[in-house]
């Protein structure tokens, strides 16, 4: 009987079900066993599936283990320790399992013979491994804290790794900043997100807890889609600084092929074309150590393994996937839209995902970077603001010429003009964050929705900044790099008097 329940209906009248595989049910690789899984129209048996995954994994990781461009013929000799980012999602769960199986399974010591699994060549590649998890529940109301669940999963790998749980609010915490080697700034600043220049000011309430600061920062984002971008950026920098502090030469992320293609398209859609290479792999060092020989290499060894393959690996190895709060901005998030678009497209055009990754791997930035963005730490493109001003006019006085009808506009009232001049004279020129940001970060902080946003307007001048931004700005201020100086400290009267004390004549006694 047909599915509609009508026995009279002919079988032939129904559409033929599309075959899941191309030609045969036999495993495409060994051509002997009946296949268990279909991956992009190719059939694999369980025995062939595992080595295929490990080969893909090693191929994506091992060429990048040795420092610089050293080949791996002389063995794998990383320059430092290993930091594994664990998000509790599927990709990073499989990543952790693969790392443990491939690089930490051999017991060391007691080797007496010739070869075998105890041979020193099978000793762990990295001396010390840290598993780092960032808890985001403070940023996302209604979500639960998963740190203990993650700790339980990571405990299975306690033999070779130490666990470092972080919280998203650490990005606003001087104590954490001090722990990872940063120098807490003497005073905090805030930024005015309502202004394109992102003017900086003294932070009014220095007693805010890191959680309050984090929430204020996210609440000030001008669009829904800016929130997941900001969270993603905070997580990335927390991991990078932790990797640096643990003297790791490698930070491994569990980004699968599917996730990587989503993040590439999402990044390009948010103006991140200049750093498309960094989206797949990057070398990083903190601003204060720029020029140092040591750096952290961010690698995504799962980049050739699709989401489906990860799921099969986890299922067959009975791995516990804790799951993560994957907030991509709701329906109005570019991350959500990109993910549903790519996953939907993959259904009809299965090679799309790998095509995106392969195409982006063939790209390089057009210009030389103009320093690094103080917010995301990635290379920043020169002349970004000039480009923005040229393609969309936002004020007439920037352009030099004015439209014919503009002359009809009344001049500001004399008292208003006087007040402006007076204010200008009284206030020192305020410096903005804008020149120190990359295109994508500036867009995240300033680009508004056409529906308008109440959030940004209520947060004028009061948005706190992550701790590394203040540190980066201080570097620019005191580094004598020839760029504009940034004076953020308001001079008190007594301090001013002290500075000019020797030029003041003593008051005459009355």
């Amino acid at each position: 009987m047909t599915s509609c329940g009508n026995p009279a209906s002919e079988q032939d009248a129904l559409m033929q079900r599309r075959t899941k595989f191309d030609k045969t049910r036999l495993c495409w690789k060994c051509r002997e066993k009946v296949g268990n899984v279909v991956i992009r129209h190719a059939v694999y048996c369980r025995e062939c599936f595992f080595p295929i995954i490990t080969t893909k994994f090693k191929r994506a990781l091992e060429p990048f283990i040795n420092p610089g461009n050293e080949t791996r013929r002389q063995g794998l000799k990383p320059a430092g320790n290993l930091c594994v980012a664990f998000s509790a999602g599927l990709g990073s769960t499989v990543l952790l399992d693969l790392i443990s199986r491939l690089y930490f399974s051999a017991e060391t010591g007691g080797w007496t013979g010739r070869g075998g699994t105890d041979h020193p060549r099978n000793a762990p590649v990295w001396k010390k491994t840290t598993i780092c998890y960032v808890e985001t529940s403070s940023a996302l109301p209604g979500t639960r804290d998963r740190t203990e669940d993650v700790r339980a999963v990571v405990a299975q790998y306690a033999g070779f790794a130490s666990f470092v749980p972080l919280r998203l609010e650490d990005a606003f915490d001087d104590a954490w900043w001090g722990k990872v080697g940063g120098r807490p700034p003497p005073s905090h600043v805030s930024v005015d997100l309502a202004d394109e220049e992102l003017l900086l000011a003294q932070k009014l309430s220095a007693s805010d807890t890191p959680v309050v600061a984090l929430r204020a920062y996210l609440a000030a984002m001008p669009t829904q889609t800016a929130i997941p971008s900001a969270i993603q950026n905070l997580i990335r920098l927390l991991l990078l600084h932790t990797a640096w502090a643990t003297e790791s030469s490698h930070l491994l992320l569990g980004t699968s092929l599917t996730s990587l293609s989503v993040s590439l398209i999402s990044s390009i859609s948010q103006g991140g074309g200049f750093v498309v290479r960094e989206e797949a792999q990057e070398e990083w060092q903190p601003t204060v150590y720029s020029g140092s020989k040591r750096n952290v290499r961010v690698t995504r060894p799962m980049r050739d393994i699709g989401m489906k393959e990860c799921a099969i690996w986890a299922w067959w190895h009975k791995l516990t996937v804790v799951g993560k709060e994957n907030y991509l901005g709701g329906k109005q998030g570019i991350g959500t839209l990109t993910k549903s678009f790519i996953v939907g497209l993959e259904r009809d055009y299965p090679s799309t995902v790998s095509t995106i990754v392969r195409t982006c791997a063939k790209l390089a930035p057009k210009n030389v970077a103009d320093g690094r963005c103080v917010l995301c730490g990635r290379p920043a493109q020169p002349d970004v603001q000039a480009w923005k001003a040229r393609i969309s006019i936002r004020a007439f006085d920037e352009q030099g010429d004015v439209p014919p009808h503009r002359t009809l506009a009344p001049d500001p009232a004399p008292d208003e003009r006087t007040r402006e001049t007076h204010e200008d004279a009284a206030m020192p020129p305020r410096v903005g964050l804008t020149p120190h940001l990359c295109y994508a970060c500036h867009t995240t902080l300033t680009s508004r929705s056409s529906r308008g946003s109440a959030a940004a307007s209520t947060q004028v001048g009061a948005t706190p900044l992550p701790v590394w931004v203040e540190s980066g700005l201080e570097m620019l201020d005191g580094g004598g790099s020839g760029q504009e100086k940034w004076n953020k400290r308001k001079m008190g009267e007594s301090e001013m008097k002290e500075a000019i004390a020797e030029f003041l004549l003593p008051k005459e006694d009355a």
Partner: protein
Amino acid sequence: MPPRTCALCLANRAMLKRPKTGQQICRDCFFYVFETEVHNTIIQSNLFKPGDRVAIGASGGKDSTVLAYVMKTLNERYQYGLELFLLSIDEGITGYRDDSLETVKRNQQQYSMPLKILSYDELYGWTMDAIVSQVGKKNNCTFCGVFRRQALDRGAAMLGVDHIVTGHNADDIAETVLMNIMRGDIARLGRCTAICTQGEDTIRRSKPFKYAYEKEIVMYAYFKKLDYFSTECIYSPDAYRGHARVFLKDLEAARPSAIIDIIHSGEAFEVREEVKATQKAQQTCKRCGYMSSNDLCKACTLLEGLERGMANAGITDRARKKLDAEGPPPDNLRTIPFYNPPSSGTASITVEAAPS
């Protein structure tokens, strides 16, 4: 609630919210910034020099109608010294082009610009109606796209112009960046954000609306009361491009700057040198003389397939091999006339002069 004041001139009442910036501005300021941004694009890229003969690719749709108006306005306002022409391609789709071509003819009269209409039938001996009757709707966009590009160049050569400007807007370019990444078309990805493209011996081709949002073009046409025809092609089921367009519109709804952000991304990267080295060098088609990456250009391959009753020969490698296996083409095969690139400013045909 009192009326809002224009965010730009701070004097007039705001009439619209600008899709590109979200600013609330008055009508006059909108006209001014829209035109000035197109002017900035032209000047920044040194698109023209005085005395250039420029053909405006005119389809009768919104983009080309507004482009013709703005080009004429800017040419007069900033004294570019350009000689402007209208160039239309008639694909031969019954009921689709007829109304649009009427718009183009009206523009010819309004703007006093000479007009040349070149049809697929005249150039290739095939209308799109005839092509679709043979190939079906599945791949017909490939035929139309390849034939239109070459037809524009050939029409421009007939007019003796130096330059073609087309109405491709920011939405089109952002969509093309995404499409080229998703289908791995590295060659096109490398050049799709260029404002001006020019082959070795082809006519320069530019997109002055590169940074103009589609919504703003419609807005400009609306406030200027420019009439145009908005007709969806009855043969265009390009599902892949359709997906990309819907995705882009969703992105724009999430954050209006997404369109310009994608273009910025496209301008910020380039194809790596070692990848460029593997790309095919450009040559000329042995049959029709048009630029090509192979011995035969795409249009000649497609046309040969049509003429020999194997339309897929230009689409798939398998069909091409099958066609080759059937031997060389017959001597009486209809081919595209040999392409003669323009020799500085002389029209090789007469055009319909604008009525005085």
